[in-house]
Structure formats: C-alpha cells, structure tokens
C-alpha cells in the first residue's frame, strides 16, 4: 500500500514524463459537453514510465501521478461512449496490464437527455 502523501490532486509530472497540458488536444473545450472519468491503470512495473508517456499523448488523457506500477489517469471526452472507447484502448498500449474505472461524471450528457 502506498503512503498517503501520494494521494494528491491535480496534474503532476511522472518520472521522465513531461507534465501534460491541462486539457489535452482532442478533448472537448469549454462550453462543449464533457464527460470526465478517472481510472487506475496498472502496468508492468518496469514499463510504468513509458506507459504514462504513451497515455498522456492520447487526446483528452492526462496522467496525474504514479504509485509504483499504478497510474492515476483522467479522460475528458465528449460522451460516455468516447470515454469508454478511449479507456478500452489503453489495454493495447504495451505494458498495460489492467484498466480500472474509478469515477465517471456524465452530468452534461444527463442534462442533454
């Protein structure tokens, strides 16, 4: 179990990974509907840094912290579907061993229904 001081909030650089932009390219911009979700992505320990880099390069994806072989990741996308598609694609990144969903906020989508 990780020390609790690692439970932090907000984007944070991960070993060898440049800090991602607050809203990565491809994500919805202000005013557009947005679904925000967070995940714990598990990786082969030696590949955690590389995976973090690859994930952070994906549209709408930010890597916020690394706890050992686990990465704390958010996805911003225009719909639940798009978020799911993005999250499901993580497993194809070399070194990813598991993708766990923690939180999904779809209040914009609900309001539009």
């Amino acid at each position, binding site marked *: 179990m990780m020390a*609790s001081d690692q*439970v932090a909030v*907000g984007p944070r650089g991960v070993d060898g990974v440049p800090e991602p932009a607050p809203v990565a390219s491809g994500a919805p911009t202000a005013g557009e509907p947005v679904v925000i979700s967070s995940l714990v992505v*598990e990786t082969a320990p030696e590949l955690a840094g590389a995976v973090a880099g690859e994930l952070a390069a994906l549209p709408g994806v930010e890597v916020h912290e690394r706890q050992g072989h686990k990465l704390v990741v958010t996805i911003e996308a225009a719909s639940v579907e798009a978020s799911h598609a993005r999250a499901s694609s993580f497993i194809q990144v070399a070194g990813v061993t598991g993708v*766990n969903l*923690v939180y999904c906020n779809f*209040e914009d989508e609900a*309001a539009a*229904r």
Partner: protein
Amino acid sequence: MELTRRKFVKTTAVALASAAAAGTMATMAGCAGEPAKGGAQAPAGQGDVTRTVGVCRFCGCGCGVIVEARDGRLVSVTGDPENGSNRGLNCVKGYYLASALYGDDRLTTPLVRDDKATKGAPGGLREATWDEALDLVASKLRETWKADKSRLAFWGSGQQPIVEGYCTAKFWKAGLLSNNIDPNARLCMASAVVGFMNVFQTDEPAGCYADIDEADVFVTWGANMAEAHPMLYSRLTARKLADDRVRHYDLTTLRTRTSASADKVLMFKPGADIAIANAIASYLVENNLYDKAFVADHLQFKQGTENIGNAFEDGYDASETGQSVDAVTSITFEEYAARLAPYTLEYAEEVSGVPAADIQELAEVFADKSRKVLSLWTMGVNQHNRGTWMNHCIYNIHLLTGRYARPGDGAFSLTGQPTACGTAREVGTFSHRLPADLLVAQEPHRRYTEAIWSLPEGYLDAIAKPGFHTVKMFRELSKGNIDFLWSAHNNWAVSLPNLTRFLGRGDKRGVIDAFICVSEVYPTLSTQYADVVLPAAMWVEREGQFGNGERRTAVFEKAVDPPGDARWDLWMLMEVAKRVLAGEQIGGKDAFDVLFGAWYDPEAGAFRGTDREVSRAIWEEYRTFSNPALNEAAAAINESAGLKMEAKQLAPYDLYIDNHGLTWPVREVDGEWLPTLWRFCDGPQADGFDEQGVERYGEHDRAGGVSFYKSAGKRPSVVFRPWEPPAEIPDDEYPFYLCTGRLLEHWHTGSMTRRIAELDRALPEALLDVNPADCERLGVKDGDRVRVTSRYGSCDITVSTTGRTAPPEGIVFAPFFAEETLINLVVQDVYCPLSKEPDYKKTTVSIEKI
C-alpha cells in the same frame, strides 16, 4: 460544462482515483459534499445532488458503486471505496451502468397480446392499463392453480433482488403451495450448489475475494475470468505484479484472454478435467504428499453411484439410474486411494491430451506447503454433464492438501450473476428449497419455515416433494404441460439450451398455447413469446439487495424514479398475489394478510411505507431464519432439530447500507455486528476470521486452524468420482464440439448491454471461433457464413479465426448473447444428473459453408 465546474469535477476524479490506487478511503469531497450514507441528501456542488450507495448491475463480481443523481437523472458513478469487494475499482463496463437505464426502447407501459398466433415475432402486443394486465395475469394464474397446480411455473433469476426473491418464493411455496419455481441460477450455479451441499452440507464458499490478494499460485479451471469477472481478474493480475514468484495455471479446453496471461496453460479434451483432477489426487496420495494431519482431523471418505448415463430423455430423473444418482456410501482412506490408483499421470494424459509432466507439475504445486494455492472456477466446471462431480474433484485436491478455508489457500467457486448467491441460493427460489439453505423434503425444515411464516403446523407438507427444475419446466412447457409461466429478471428465450425445442419450432405448440407473463425492462426475444409484458423498474429506480459470490450482502438504494408507468417488481407480485389469493384462507385467516399484510395494504394497493421501510420489514422477517432467537417457536424447533440456523447469522437491514455491504455470517458480539471473511477459519473475528463460529460450534487447535462445524460430524466429505465421457462424442456426422460462453462486452443475453451503442459496436456480432486448420479442412475462411447443426437444431453464424478465443482443432466456440444468431438453437439440453444444470460446453456439431 463551465470551466470552474470542470476543474472541480476533475479534481474530484483525480482524488478518487488516487485514493483507490493507494487502497485508501476517499471521501467524495468536491462534487457533492459528504460521503455517501444511507441515501442522505448531500449538499450539492451544483444543483441538488443526491448520493446513494449501490452495487453494479452487471456481472457476478458484485462491485460496490456510489451513484449521484440530479433532477431525476444519474450524473455520476464511482467505484465504492468502502465496499470490500472492489475497494473503489470498477471495470470499464462501469461506464455504462447509467446508460443501461436510458435505452431508447425502455418498456414503460404494460402490454397485452390478443392473438397468440403473433407469438415469436416482434409486434402483436398492445398497450394496456396496469389493472387490465394484472387482472389478466392473476385470473390465468388462479384458473391454472385451481384446475391443476402442476401446470403453473415461475422462472426467476440470480439477478432478482433479495427481498423480491424472498417474497416470490413465499408466494409460490406458501401461497400457492407449489414448488414449480426455479431460477436461471440453475443454468450457472446449480452444480456448485450441489457440490457444496454434498461436501460441506452448507451452500457457501469458505473464502472471499481477499484470498486473491494472498495466494501464491492461481489455478483457474474452466473459467475465463478475464472476460467474465473483470474486477477479480484485475485483482489477480495485480497480485502477480506485486510478486514475480506468483504463478497462474489455466486449465481450459480452448485459449481465452485468461489463458493469454497465464504462466502455463493445460489444454484438455472436453470433459477430461475429472481425469486430470483424479490423477493429481492420486499422485498426492501415492507419493505421500497429502496433509496427514488435516486428513485425520477433518475428513471422511465416500464413493457414490457411478455409470449414471446422461439426461437425454425427459424421463431420466424418474428412471432407476436417475433416482440413485445422489446415493453415497462411506469408504476408508485406503479404499479411496485404491479407487484413485488407476488414475496415473499417463492415463490422465491419454484421456485429456495434457502431457503427464504438466499434470505432475501441477500436482507438485499442490504438494508444496510453502506456497498458498487458490483454485477458481466457473461455467466450464458447472455447465458440465458431470458438473457436480467436478466440483467434488476440486475440493478433493484442496482437502487432501489441507488447502481450504485458509486465507489465500482455498478453492473458490465464482458466481455467474450479481445475486445468484444472495437470492437464488439463499432465499429459496429453487424448486427443492426453502429460505436459508432449508429443503422442502426435510420435515424439520418445513416446521421451521412454518413457524416463521405464521403458518399452521403441517401446512407446508403439501410441498414436501420438489417441483420442476428449469430444464424439466421448459421440457414440460414444450410438451403443452404448462398452462401458466411467469418469468422475471431473465431472458429464457435466448439463454435456455435446446431452444429449437423450447421455442416451439417444429410441431411443439406449448410455448404458443401457454399463458406467459414476462416482467422486463426492454423488449427481448422472451417478450415476443409473452401474453402479457409487465414493465419493470430497473436497478436504482427502486431499492434492492444483491448477495455476491463472497457472501457479501449489499443494498442498492433508490436513486431515481422509473420511467413512465414502469413499476417495482415487488409491487407487481403483491398485486398479482392479492388477486389470486382473494377469498383464500390460511389457518382461518385471510391468506394474503398472513403472508404479506405486514408490508402491503391490499385495499389501498400500496406498500405500508417507503421502499426502505418495506425492504427493511421483509429483510427482518427473512433474517429471522438465521436469527431464531427472534421467533420463539422457531427457536424451539431450531433447538430440538439441531438445525444451527444461527450459524449463518445475518445482520439488521440498515447495517448493510451503513457498512456498504457485509459478508455473512455477521455475528452479534456485545451489541456489535461483525462480518466473517474466512468462514470456518479460527482467528480474531475483528480481522474477518470465524472466531465466534469455531468457538460456538467447532473446535480450536485442529489441523490448519480450521473447523468445519457445519459438516456432518464436522468432517467434509472427500467423494471419489470417476471420469465418465461427455454425453456426446464427436463422430463423422457431428465432428466438432461446440462450446458457448460469455465475452466481456455483453452481459449474458445482452438485453441491457446491447442497448449501449458503444458496447454493441465493440462486439456487434456473435462469431464462431474456429481453428485455422479446421477452416482449411472445411474450406471456409474468416467472414464466411456457415450453418452449425447438432442433433438438436441449427443456426447460421459467421466464422472467425481471429476471435476472442482460440480453440484447438475439433472445438469451436460461440458466445450466446446474440438473439439474431441464437446459438442455443443448437445446444443440447442434457444436464448434470445431480444438479440438473445443462452442459453448454460440449454439444457435438457439424459445420457447413452456406
């Protein structure tokens, strides 16, 4: 979403994931204030947000979730960090939990069919009022009941919430005095249930999900956990990552996603698993590698009826063989060893195709007491013509090596549905059961139930004989011997085997002529055969309870209202019961009032209280079964018949909400209610061990620190079970084995998940996975359409060599979710003679290009 709000939500998202990654509790500060508790409305970050505790609606893992709603709509779903089953983590299907409620074609009004000739196709149903629909259902049920109650039936589910399952069983068994009630759990867990009862005399796993975090070696037997139990598989892979000495052996008949990440795959010929398991047991005994102290302290040995044939014919159960399948006799350890002796490694290789060296390697894994070994299994073992026997064989290995009921060292039967345990098994919706593991055939069990249900003594003697199990029920329906069928929380027209027979294709008219009521949330193939469709509230549109595979009972609170005229299933049941029982008496009192008057006012047509109050009232009655002290008459029977009902104690209702689920038995100790993670394992109750149970009923200081106090003589039974071949063997006419199963995207028959566009796009079609060498022989290639034909029926399907599974030559695989393919038209309805669970894994088929 405004930028400030977006930042705010994201901050919450990161905090929650960060805490979940660390395994610490997160408070959901940010979006809606206080952590979730008991449906309390929390001050909202934006608008009025309510936050409620829930359980995922989809798979058998039973993950906890927190649900937020605003303006009558769900706005977020979070893995519940306080639910011990999943500790804040969900699988990616969690994205769609809310979407499952909002499919375009939700059923929102009752539907009635005027012309039976329209059955079997879309259309033919018209809108009706609740009164018309309920009057019709009740009048047909009453008419059948009065004329011949062997001709009515209820088919339920391992997805029917607990209090509804309890009330349905009570209505059927005590109200109608009928045992013609069975759940779809018969199709997935029945072999596990009979295995538990035969070995331990109690239907429950001793272990829990936390075993996964402590095991050194995983052995999966006929289980594609990576797709069917995603969260638990993620826990398994996390354990492997945490320690590179951890190993995973996968025993399977075809390569799956689970095999792909296993360290070693033992690919065996269909049905040969019993030969492998016996060879392992034989090797352990022969080489003195078993745990002698454990054997001496805890075990007894038996053998049973053998050469039991197969249940091809409708009359199998009543045949001489069918009547003798449950018989066992005691044998000595030496006799058991002698029975195992023919199962040499070489013989097992010959039968199974698995190299003897690999079987020996696995046997040595079990022999090595420096490492903990956890076996996990599901449908490959249960949906097996010898499913009960194979459950036995896995326990045999674990018991011989003293690996049972100890943290990380155990045998864990995974469940297929979110409340297969909590409802189907625990509250008595099987044709042979009463609540809390009690059996209709046992007189003291009937007396005990009568005491709690306030029935006159002897009232339930009318149901001493079990009713129709699932396959029998539908075989009788197809023969025109059922006049009334009600199904709820299932989709039998897609999930049953041998649909060619059961859907009335050919000259079987039963399904057309019978009056069929289907409670549903979406149109399905089953509603196409319904005379009346009752639109149901789903998931968090009402309060409900699930009991998952680790004995964890959890509540999902009501978060939003159902759409249109859709209503709580429990209300439908009460309204039908009220009409059917009108004017009937039990012990000189109004029958409805005796059974349901405590929570339903028949005159007003309304519950006596909120969803919460009603659920609590029903739970408290059900809980009396495991807390006999709450009922004087029951307590006396419990005492005199030595039932030990309190050994499976359940807690007061609200504690399940406050604690985000609790694993039973939940013991009352000095006014506190303490759950049990490791049943029968001695150790501090506060750490999840079964200190209280062992203290009250068992013995301390026995081998392995465990005491099997629920078993006869406190000794579980090691029962020798021989290898016998599958019901059908491939031949020139039907040269392939067809295996069916589930894949990640779609939950069972897809009635919820196929409403979700992305999941449907991800897996739009059921494909037939075929080995490339077989494709060549058949002259087919990827994307070709073929006709698959068995002795039972045929269907058309598209071939794939790059599908989710990679079968060896001679085996093909298809998922069963797609109603347009309807693979179950082809699947045999032969079942395990002990559990009556059908074998979906080895129908022999031919394949031809079309």
